[in-house]
């Protein structure tokens, strides 16, 4: 497990273990909140988290915006768990959440660039 952590695609793009861990927390809380807004069962939320984790085992955080991936994961997880939600609803709530919460990735990126 440690080996996977040390060789994740994000690592190759220069993202630290700590940063990736933070991002993981970030998208999980995002997924949790999104799932609750969409009123899907917890299994669907968990499924979305799994999809997201698995995605970032193969893809880099540097190249894939986690909000997009999280939204997509939720949409797919809802279908997998037989509680499909309309794409527009998923998108709407995802947008609302990213606006209301300060962890909008573009803002973060700007902050990081300034620093």
């Amino acid at each position, binding site marked *: 497990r440690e080996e996977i952590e040390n060789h994740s695609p994000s690592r190759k793009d220069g993202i630290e273990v700590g940063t990736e861990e933070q991002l993981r927390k970030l998208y999980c809380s995002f997924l949790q909140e999104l799932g609750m807004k969409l009123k899907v069962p917890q299994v669907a939320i968990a499924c979305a988290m799994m999809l997201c984790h698995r995605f970032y085992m193969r893809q880099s955080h540097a*190249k894939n915006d986690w909000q*997009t991936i999280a939204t997509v994961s939720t949409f797919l997880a809802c279908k997998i768990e037989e509680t499909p939600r309309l794409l527009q609803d998923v998108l709407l709530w995802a947008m609302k959440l990213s606006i209301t919460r300060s962890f909008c990735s573009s803002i973060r990126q700007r902050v990081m660039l300034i620093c």
Partner: protein
Amino acid sequence: MAIAGAGQLNLHESPCWGSRSVDCFEKLEQISEGTYGQVYMAREIKTGEIVALKKIRMDNERGFPITAIREIKILKKLHHENVIKLKESVTSQGAKDEQGRPGKCCPIPINNLLLGATKYSPAVDMWSVGCIFAELLHGKLIFPGKDEPEQLNKIFELCGAPDEVNWPGVSKIPWYNNFKPTRPMKRRLREALGNQEKAPATATTRRKGQTTEITAFTASCRLPPIQSGQAHAQMRPGPNPPLHGSQPPVAAGPGHHHGKPRGPAGGPGRYPANGTNGGFNHQNHGGGYSSGPYPPQGRGAPYGSSGMPGAGPRGSGGSGYGVGAPNYSQDGPTEVLVLDVALT
């Protein structure tokens, strides 16, 4: 390097696992085509292995079809020599294909929608289940039509011709007039199957009767979700699954009485929610099952809680078709689909 900006996706590198291109296979011939998509016989170019390639039709409004997701999920769980194995999923430009190694599977064209009807509902799955049961009993295809008109004719011959009585709203179905049978046909399913003395030993007379009912033309075409849901619930492995599985009280049309003992009438209502919306809930149901020969496991659950959108759709009359299955949600007939997939 900073994390990705909003909306940034890695579209340049194709991932190194899981999604080979469909170009790895060479299509040999089309095996079948259905509402779900097309199935091809294909050869893997590298190994020469012959596989079945199923092209999934993309739903532009809702993305990857949930039916396909279900199918993948179920196929991944199923390991049986008679059920096709899901080998891998491959992608192509704009479409996704799914591929399985051919197992022993029998071609049963059962899940067709009749007469150009466009709505896929649990009723269609119930129809499939009925067909499969009948075929298991019969030992061969029950509607061996070469093409659609012929098959339709076979169905009508066996199940009687559809009309407004046994299928409300049928005359509004697009192709009804094109295929309307010229002469009235009587339902003779029970006779046909009842005479099957060579039916497998496992098929008891009782089950024969039930199969007759499940394949009831109207009912199976128009099973309201509550009944489908129930049948579905009973499909679940239980203490005596076969009996439960084939026991949906199909009562959607007049004259389809089982004629079997079902326990004393007037038992505690099994369908409390439906008491008031009548309609499809045939009197047959009055005789609750509670004191019937079956243990109470696996009952009740599907009713009280499961979202039964607009319970009693038959009661709403009018449009007749499609009212049965507004959303194929929750405990949709997944198990039913298993059979569908496994045997198709």
